[in-house]
């Protein structure tokens, strides 16, 4: 059953904004790239170099989505792989979206615990964000996109404002020597690692049939990739210049700590609250998007409307996040979160799409 029929068209502009902010949120939150070897002052080069790798990785998904631009990922998965294997593909992508959802909500709680509400129970903070996201998801993706159209520009203005206000803390020498401490191989391996994490392309392939201009899929992908990479590069540069390359690596939330350094004169400080507000808005959008598509995937698997699953999935996420978060931290531990994200990324962006592409090319005439 086509669960996404209820949603109306999403404009290119809305989609570019959403994918850009989804791609930016990881860097805005915990910036894992600064700890990827060579983990030095050349990480901004790694980010820029990751663009061609991301394009390469995303090629199979983009190719298939362009070919089947009237269908979403689950629907053309079934056509290419057949009913049984198509179902496995849908189950896999549902699991990917579900695990991502748990990680995002968990990280959300973690930063709120660290920055605002250290004594508030996980159940309360997780409950509040999930209630908000349930409401947003019930309105459909079109409304998430429309909300994004309103609040993403606010988030971007806040990011630029914080970057400008923090200028007194910058030491450009932190970025030197350029390429002095890293090898060509290290830089490229890191760029490959960063490039594979552009998972938001999967959401793009799910919304393709409802783009107002389906033929602009590649344009949307390239633009959002470019914008989010440039913004991530800017964040890396600002964090490393403001906090120092090594100290930044020790921080669970580097951009948050950076915003704590900002003050204007003696009196005006506390710009970290501005960061937290924009970060909450961005996360609400991101969690709503992933929640929505997780339920769409479940709807495809069970042949039911996606709205049936929004509340049950949210309750399960709430319980799991509470259980996990009340037992161990998510971000400060290098494992298993990092490995889970990397393995999920490799399978979601590379292994499954390449398999689907090969099968499609082999069965092209029969489809």
């Amino acid at each position, binding site marked *: 059953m086509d669960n996404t029929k209820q949603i109306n068209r999403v404009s290119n502009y809305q989609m570019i904004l959403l994918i850009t902010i989804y791609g930016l949120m990881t860097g805005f939150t915990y910036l894992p790239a600064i700890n990827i070897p060579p983990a030095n002052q050349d990480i901004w080069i790694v980010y820029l170099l990751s663009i061609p790798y991301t394009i390469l990785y995303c090629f199979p998904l983009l190719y298939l989505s362009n070919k089947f631009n009237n269908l979403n990922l689950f629907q053309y998965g079934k056509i290419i792989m057949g009913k049984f294997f198509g179902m496995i593909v849908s189950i896999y992508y549902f699991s990917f979206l579900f695990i991502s959802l748990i990680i995002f909500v968990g990280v959300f709680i973690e930063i709120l615990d660290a920055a605002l509400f250290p004594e*508030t129970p996980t159940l*309360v903070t997780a409950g509040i964000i999930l209630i908000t996201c349930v409401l947003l998801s019930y309105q459909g993706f079109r409304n998430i996109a429309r*909300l994004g159209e309103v609040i993403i520009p606010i988030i971007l203005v806040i990011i630029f404002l914080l970057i400008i206000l923090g200028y007194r803390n910058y030491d450009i*020498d932190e970025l030197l*020597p350029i390429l002095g401490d890293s090898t060509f191989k290290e830089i490229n391996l890191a760029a490959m690692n960063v490039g594979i994490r552009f998972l938001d392309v999967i959401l793009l392939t799910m919304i393709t049939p409802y783009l107002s201009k389906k033929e602009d899929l590649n344009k949307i992908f390239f633009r959002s990739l470019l914008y989010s990479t440039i913004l991530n590069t800017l964040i890396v540069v600002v964090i490393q210049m403001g*906090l120092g*390359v*090594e*100290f930044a690596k020790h921080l669970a939330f580097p951009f948050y700590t950076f915003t704590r350094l900002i003050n204007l004169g003696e009196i005006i400080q506390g710009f970290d609250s501005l960061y937290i507000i924009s970060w909450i*808005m961005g996360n609400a959008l991101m969690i709503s998007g992933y929640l929505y598509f997780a339920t769409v995937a479940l709807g495809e698997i069970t042949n039911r409307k996606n709205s049936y699953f929004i509340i049950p999935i949210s309750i399960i996420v709430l319980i799991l996040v509470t259980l996990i978060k009340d037992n161990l931290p998510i971000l400060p531990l290098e494992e298993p979160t990092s490995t889970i994200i990397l393995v999920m990324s490799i399978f979601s962006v590379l292994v499954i799409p390449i398999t689907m592409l090969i099968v499609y090319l082999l069965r092209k005439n029969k489809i």
Partner: protein
Amino acid sequence: MNGKLILLNLFIILAFFLTGCQDAREVQELGITLLIGIDIEDDKLVLTGEVVDPAFTQPGKGDTSQNNIVKYVQGTGNNIYEALRDLVLKFDRLLFGYHNKVIIIGEEVAKRGIVGYIDQLFRSREIRETSYMLVAKGGKAYEVMGINSGLEGIPAMHILKLIQNAKDNPKAVDMNMVNFLRHYYHEGHQTILGVMEKKKKRRINKGSQTEGTEDLELSILGSAIFNKDVLAGYLNGNDTKAVNYVMNNARGGTITFITPLPDKGERLETGTGHNNLSSLVVINNKSKNDVEIKGDKVLLKTKIRVRGFLEEVVGNIDIAKRENLRKMEEACSKAVEEGIKSTVRKVQREYKLDVFGFGLAFNKKYPQEWKKVKDNWDEIFAEADFEIEVETNIIRTGIINTPITMKKGK
């Protein structure tokens, strides 16, 4: 529809503010610290906090003498957090560090290595990374706390103002927590911190003091230099100024130099003067460090450009003439050169620690060679030759031209 979306957005934001009640801490329940001191006694960490009573900071509310504005509390433990928790058994409020401005490290802690003791300050979100750090020179942190020889009502604010005054006199260092840690992690750049010292003060106002008591004042003159995070020694005010110039940290301050003599025919009749020293107020200063490998030796190079105005001229020179002004510029450059050369020599011989950051310049210029020398960079620094070039630019001479000690005549 757009209006509805904006409204929804507003509600989402407001909802998060409402959740703050769970963690709300009322101001009357907080022990707001502006200054904390960290010491070691009998192998235990002693944490001293200067807690300000918010009620007394409001004008017209009660007795605003220092005894009533602030309270000093001390806790002991194996680490900072244990000491903080020890405090709650002696003091009726939990210490609240959001507004903390300064952290004073006792000399003993500095000698043992600071970083191992201050993890909690970075890990907890309370104390801002912009808090200044000072070393209590020659004593305990709590020994320099509670002295207020200034006009600020709160001692911590007095100390904060002293630190901020370093911008007008680079004979002191204003290092905050994040920059301290940034330098600590740098390879090829040893850390320096500001110092805090209590000194006896000459009693001028005899009427206001009780007989038999001594007047004390605080001074942040000089700096403490570290081998990584272990205190290695102290630099005096002039040496600190030289380090600040080389590190590009001097934003203001004064340069005093011997007033040059003009050519014989131009000398004017002078009045009496106690010396021939002139002062230049620095408007801005820019330095650039460089290194060069010369055979098996390293040459350290610094280029400094000073822009400033003449604040005091004592000597036999008519600065209304361009060539004399140029001589003043050269004399000023020479004084800076000599001061910095002497400090670099002293640090090379006495401490063998690169507090100037020449190692960073080496890493930038010779990244491959740096990998070979970084482990024993301080030894290489100690043996290196030093070269300095200073260029002074006097852009103003005040509202008089020739020094008032001179008669201009016809």
